[in-house]
């Protein structure tokens, strides 16, 4: 009861929620699910481009949080820990998809077709504030960038997504990916360099 109240009082802090859950308050876990399910889904979807797989991985991430909450180290933010779990799961899927593509007997795998489908113009890229010409050019550029991102290796894609989309710092990314700061810097720079090269070709 006391733990429950404590959890309610400090509901803004992830660390307090996980501490409350560690003490046996399942309501704290539910709050973490409410808080992180959408960001995690977006994050994983950005990497995998597969709705079903993304849903499964988010569920698996929360299951691991539930089962191994005792392993959480309070020295680091909870966000880093949960993204670390989700990242490892997503990179495993990306790597196995890559291997499947590599060993695919046929030239075009299902995954490649999916990528093409997602690279096609859709409402996601439309900016209604621009004139049609600018809008078209902008859409084309976004498609090109999306194509380049889809072709990045899983680690570059992960580092770029964590930094640019999730807004995590290099230090947090280093912790999530279990690498040093310089490696994170290098991964993000190379990913952006590839996009830059693609942009230069198109312009």
């Amino acid at each position, binding site marked *: 009861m006391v733990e429950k109240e404590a959890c309610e009082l400090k509901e803004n802090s992830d660390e307090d929620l996980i501490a409350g859950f560690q003490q046996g308050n399942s309501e704290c*876990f*539910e709050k973490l*699910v*409410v808080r992180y*399910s*959408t960001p995690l*889904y*977006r994050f994983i*979807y*950005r990497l995998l481009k597969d*709705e079903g797989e993304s*849903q499964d991985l*988010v*569920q698996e991430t*929360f*299951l691991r949080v*539930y*089962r191994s909450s005792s392993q959480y180290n309070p020295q680091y933010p909870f966000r880093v820990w949960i993204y670390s779990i989700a990242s490892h799961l997503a990179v495993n899927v990306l790597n196995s998809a890559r291997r499947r593509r590599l060993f695919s007997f046929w030239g075009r795998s299902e995954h490649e077709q999916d990528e093409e489908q997602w690279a096609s113009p859709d*409402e*996601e*890229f439309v*900016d209604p504030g621009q004139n049609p010409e600018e809008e078209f050019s902008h859409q084309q*550029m*976004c498609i090109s*960038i*999306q194509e380049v991102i889809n072709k990045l290796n899983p680690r570059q894609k992960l580092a*770029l997504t964590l*930094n*640019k*989309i999730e807004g995590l*710092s*290099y230090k947090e990314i280093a912790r999530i990916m279990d690498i040093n700061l310089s490696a994170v*810097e290098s991964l*993000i*720079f190379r990913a*952006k*360099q590839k*996009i*830059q090269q693609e*942009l230069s070709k198109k312009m």
Partner: protein
Amino acid sequence: MRTQHVTDRKISCLLDGELSLAEHEAISLHLDQCQVCREKVVRWQRIDQYLRHNERKIAPPAFFEQKILAHVHREVATAAGYMATGGNRRPYLCGLKFRFATVGLVALGFFLGTVMGTKLTAFLVREKEGIDIIAVLSSQDISSPSITELGLDFINGNGGESS
């Protein structure tokens, strides 16, 4: 005096806010004077803008949170059920492990059947030959030659005196 141009890597870090204060100040100072580097910064900024623009429109499916909670509770309950009953637990050898174990056992059986079988046959044959030789030897009357037969009578002290 103008310093060297800022590298692309440094510009990338600058835009990500990952430079130390000293580096940030030095580069800002250089950018005030260098048109080439300012243009580079604009090019790199454009990438960041495109990357951010591509985001924030994906929504998870309806009742996603409830689905997650239901999934977690189901999995935990199932695991708890296994722990409680013990009998429903998956056997240690199942799925892929079972297949590997079966293949391993068959291979071992084949190995033992062929290699060890051949060796056993050879051993039995040798044993049989050995038994035959002993039987032949035991059937013959083999006795050691006598001293007289060997011409060693002198050992008994009567050598050469007997005429």
